[in-house]
């Protein structure tokens, strides 16, 4: 195949999704002799490995374990209850990503309180929609439910910056963000499951940069690869990881160099640092991880939705028998949970891993595992 010197978008896309090229890597992968457990940290990778059929094409010696990379799945019930409390206030509208709507909180989900208690919940594609709504409705308190990893966090930072710059007084943020590197630290320290290598999230890495994972090499000697999401990216990423394992190396390699640099996106990191500071955060399944979440900086503290909260949220318990917490840590696979496919399904989800389209349970369910 020929590529023009300039190269077009379609040409690149075609090159990275070409089945023939993916096959070249898969053939090499099948020659690997070691039995390995590899964790794909990102929920988008979980889905892509299923969707492309690469997961099924792997030899049985290669086990793919899904990690804590679905933001909806790791959001604890307490903050969801706070979001519901805010949505139920007469003067308040809450904006959130679609996946978050159906996660069962203590009693109901955000979607259910819309009907049962007349709560104002709006599903957004982009946090900019909340900004525009706040501009058009100055008498309403508009709350952004801030869920996501480093891919998404700069977007919220940009929106809050716009709000301050344009003197918008009715846009608030309920921060429930999570940071990936501290979660990897916690997983490796807890030693709850053995991991021979990591497939690191491509788009989180586009923001934070490959250098942000140096600690994997330094402290834990675990090989890792930052990979993209096309079939060739997935297969090449796996092969890079297997080669490292075979040669007993433990580096952070970058397969997704067309979008990921060593330093990431400096502009996005700068805007993040202006709006947020690191804070301890509670993860479903993993508990409180030091400095793995974000709080607003002094300059933005007045936009914290906590200032609107005039109700108390008692500590919530996770649904009984639900094993989302263990699924997130890679300790069990979805079929090992007694609720899977019996009481818990995408139509009637009990745990968040079944709600989000990128949750491990939902992916297993959809692809017939």
């Amino acid at each position: 195949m020929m590529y023009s010197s300039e190269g077009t978008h379609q040409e690149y896309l075609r090159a990275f999704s070409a089945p023939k090229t993916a096959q070249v890597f898969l053939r090499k992968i099948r020659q690997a002799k070691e039995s390995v457990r590899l964790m794909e940290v990102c929920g988008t990778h979980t889905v892509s490995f299923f969707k492309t059929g690469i997961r099924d094409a792997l030899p049985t010696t290669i086990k793919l374990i899904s990690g804590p990379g679905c933001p909806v799945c790791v959001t604890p019930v307490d903050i969801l209850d706070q979001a519901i409390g805010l949505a139920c206030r007469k003067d308040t509208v809450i904006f959130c990503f679609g996946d978050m709507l159906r996660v069962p909180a203590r009693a109901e989900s955000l979607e259910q309180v819309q009907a049962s208690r007349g709560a104002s919940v709006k599903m957004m594609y982009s946090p900019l929609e909340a900004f525009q709504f706040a501009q058009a409705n100055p008498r309403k308190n508009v709350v952004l439910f801030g869920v996501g990893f480093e891919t998404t966090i700069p977007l919220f930072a940009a929106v809050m910056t716009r709000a301050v710059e344009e003197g918008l007084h009715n846009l608030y943020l309920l921060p429930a963000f999570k940071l990936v590197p501290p979660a990897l630290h916690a997983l490796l320290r807890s030693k709850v499951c053995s991991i021979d290598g990591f497939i690191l999230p491509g788009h989180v890495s586009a923001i934070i940069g490959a250098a942000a994972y140096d600690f994997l090499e330094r402290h834990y000697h675990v090989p890792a690869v930052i990979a993209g999401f096309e079939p060739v990216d997935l297969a090449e990423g796996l092969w890079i990881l297997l080669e490292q394992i075979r040669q007993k190396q433990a580096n952070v390699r970058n397969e997704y160099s067309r979008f990921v640099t060593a330093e990431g996106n400096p502009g996005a990191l700068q805007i993040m640092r202006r709006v947020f500071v690191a804070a301890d955060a509670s993860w479903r399944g993993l508990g409180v991880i030091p400095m793995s979440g974000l709080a607003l900086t002094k300059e933005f503290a007045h936009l914290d939705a906590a200032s609107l909260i005039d109700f108390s949220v008692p500590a919530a318990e996770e649904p009984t028998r639900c094993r989302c917490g263990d699924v997130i840590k890679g300790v069990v696979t979805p079929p090992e949970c007694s609720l899977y496919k019996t009481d818990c399904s995408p139509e009637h989800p009990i745990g968040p891993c079944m709600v989000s389209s990128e949750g491990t349970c939902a992916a297993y369910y959809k692809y017939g595992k």
Partner: protein
Amino acid sequence: MCLAVPGKIVQLIDHRTAMIDFMGIQKQIALDLIQDPVVGEYVIVHAGFAIQKLHADDARESIKLFEEMARHQQDQE
């Protein structure tokens, strides 16, 4: 949720908005996170914001490697 789609900058509308072409479909996208955007460049877009530019040299290098590997494998068979 970290899904992001590549597209091409076809027009700069104001200092933080661009028209981006996604293989024929055009949408207005926020540029708050991109420094020095230029018409004709490719970016990756997540939830209404461009989050990173495409580094075309790296893409071309990867593609060259794929072609070499395919040739090498053919030679072996």
